């Protein structure tokens, strides 16, 4: 269950349903990507890494490819992937605190940083594993209760998974999803159950997410703590069952939230709108700009202004709304909604009792805290164990190793908090980056390490380098150097930067296999090691 709790990060709990809610069918890439990646992890990685029996992923890469260089490349990837993840979690914590302590998002993230720091740096692996089971229970309960309530209210069906395919309570004969398609189109959005991205792009993004997910270091390390290989397989199964409960509920929550949002807010006067809109406006995660000065909220396709809202608090608008200084866009959309608030706001929108809203907040916190703690552990052990002890200073004392680990975790909290507060759009971009890097570097190296005995260090290293450089170059170009060109007509083969990790992965495989053909095969003791990890326990 600890694996399940690690997996279900704040991203899953808070952001995913929100993302799907705004993306419609295209949001499926996250559902399939994350759960499908889990299948890869359970089938292709977990049992063998368990048999290998060391502590970290860089340990495996370093030993299998008998090379410090390979180990260091893996450490750098692990740290980078984990950092981007922690940053996302910190933002999740910040959102919960900002709404329920009634402070701005910045203060919310700062409070979260303090708690995560205390929690992860002072405790250890054992403390984390133990509390994660408790957190998991809070989390799943918090997610299911409001979903079931809302499902009954809207469709009369207590199972959200079936509910969002059912008929509406107040309009018998009309299915919820048809109603939602209709509402969306009437407001100028495209239909909820149809896709907008090209099929190639969807394929590549899903693959990058799956493969990148399978390489998430903080989840892989969990499998090192079970006693036997057979237990690794079994706990992978249980973890996926629990993950599936949440992941099949999420699209239902998304559809309910979207329907409620579209049927309660657009076309209403700002002064008459439900309280939740203003509550979230005061946290800075909703903004309304009255473009045509009619006092009514117009909501349609397109961003209301460029970037995230930049509030001025010295003056209020004529209706009491908060004013922003952003450059307004040409379209008629007046409403800015941060996607991450959908799950937390959903019970408020549906007017559920206060205790349910509190429960969801508790669940969001549990999710974010447990994942953040797990990730911090990976970062601190990567630095103290993989980098310092195994690479730079082999005879470091245990006390010093522990101290480095704590300092590293503390530093990681600070960096993560910084990204949680500052340009949040940046975090989303870096997440794509992290998946792409994990997909194009780790994954092929580990897979070939297990399934292709002839793979040698020259092949693995050149493959990882080729994969990473290619993927990083493509993402850097479109996301940071020339963002203006970031559209389908400039992408290679129509693949967006989110999906390019898949191509990087294929490149990695190709380069590694070619190089391995022309260089000397791995030494006999490494081949014997591969033979050994392929078998179940002796005796």
């Amino acid at each position, binding site marked *: 269950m600890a694996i399940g709790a690690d997996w279900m990060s704040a991203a899953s709990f808070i952001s995913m349903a929100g993302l799907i809610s705004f993306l419609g069918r295209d949001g499926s890439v996250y559902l*399939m990507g994350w*759960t499908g990646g889990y299948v890869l992890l359970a089938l*292709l990685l977990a049992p063998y890494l368990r048999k290998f029996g060391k502590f970290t992923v860089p340990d495996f890469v370093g030993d299998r490819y008998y090379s410090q260089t390979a180990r260091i490349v893996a450490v750098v990837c692990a740290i980078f992937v984990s950092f981007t993840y922690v940053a996302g979690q910190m933002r999740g914590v910040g959102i919960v605190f900002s709404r329920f302590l009634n402070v701005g998002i910045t203060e919310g993230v700062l409070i979260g940083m303090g708690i995560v720091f205390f929690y992860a740096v002072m405790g250890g692996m054992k403390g984390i594993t133990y509390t994660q089971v408790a957190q998991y229970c809070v989390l799943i309960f918090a997610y299911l209760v409001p979903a079931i309530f809302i499902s009954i209210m809207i469709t009369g069906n207590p199972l959200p998974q079936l509910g969002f*395919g059912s008929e509406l309570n107040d309009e018998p004969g009309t299915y919820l999803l048809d109603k939602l398609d209709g509402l969306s189109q009437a407001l100028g959005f495209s239909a909820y159950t149809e896709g907008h991205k090209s099929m190639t792009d969807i394929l590549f993004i899903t*693959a990058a997410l799956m493969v990148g997910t399978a390489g998430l270091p903080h989840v892989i390390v969990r499998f090192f703590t079970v006693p036997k290989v*057979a237990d690794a397989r079994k706990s992978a199964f249980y973890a996926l069952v629990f993950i*599936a409960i949440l992941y099949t509920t999420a699209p239902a929550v998304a559809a309910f939230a979207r329907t409620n949002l579209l049927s309660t807010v657009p076309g209403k006067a700002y002064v008459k709108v439900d309280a939740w809109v203003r509550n979230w406006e005061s946290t800075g995660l909703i903004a309304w700009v009255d473009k045509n000065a009619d006092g009514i909220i117009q909501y349609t396709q397109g961003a209301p202004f460029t970037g995230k809202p930049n509030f001025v608090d010295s003056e209020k608008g004529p209706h009491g709304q908060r004013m922003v200084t952003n450059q307004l866009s040409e379209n008629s959309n007046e409403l800015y909604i941060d996607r991450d608030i959908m799950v937390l706001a959903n019970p408020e929108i549906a007017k559920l009792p206060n205790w349910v809203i509190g429960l969801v907040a508790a669940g969001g916190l549990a999710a974010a805290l447990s994942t953040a703690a797990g990730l911090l552990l990976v970062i601190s052990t990567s630095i103290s164990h993989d980098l310092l002890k195994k690479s730079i200073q082999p005879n470091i004392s245990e006390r010093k190793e522990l101290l480095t680990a704590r300092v590293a975790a503390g530093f990681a909290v600070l960096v993560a908090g910084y990204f949680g507060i500052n340009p949040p759009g940046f975090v989303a971009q870096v997440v794509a980056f992290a998946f792409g890097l994990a997909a194009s570097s780790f994954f092929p190296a580990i897979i070939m390490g297990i399934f292709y005995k002839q793979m040698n260090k020259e092949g693995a290293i050149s493959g990882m380098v080729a994969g990473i450089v290619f993927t990083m170059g493509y993402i850097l170009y479109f996301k940071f150097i020339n963002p203006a060109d970031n559209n389908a007509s400039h992408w290679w083969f129509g693949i967006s930067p989110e999906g390019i990790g898949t191509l990087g992965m294929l490149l990695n495989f190709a380069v590694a296999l070619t190089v391995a053909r022309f260089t000397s095969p791995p030494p006999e003791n490494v081949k014997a090691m591969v033979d050994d990890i*392929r078998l*179940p326990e002796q005796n």
Partner: protein
Amino acid sequence: MGPMATHDPEHSYWRGNLKYLSILLIIWFLVSYGCGILWVDQLDKIRIGGFKLGFWFAQQGSIYVFVGLIFLYVLWMNRLDKTYEASKNDHTSG
């Protein structure tokens, strides 16, 4: 590899493992990339209740199948482990 190699228990254990993995991964691919992405528009023409079938596969069905896949994997591999243990004992004693 001579005929001896196919009879040694390590080798046949690994062969069995690879066979199961291929079967499971083919299903994995067909359900997620196939039903959820490649054939989604064709499947969307079929409706089950309020769901278009392709949409359902992308957001629900694929996940249920994934759970089933890992269940099968655990079952098959545990059986394979047992066969392996047994044949290894035969091998060393005989």
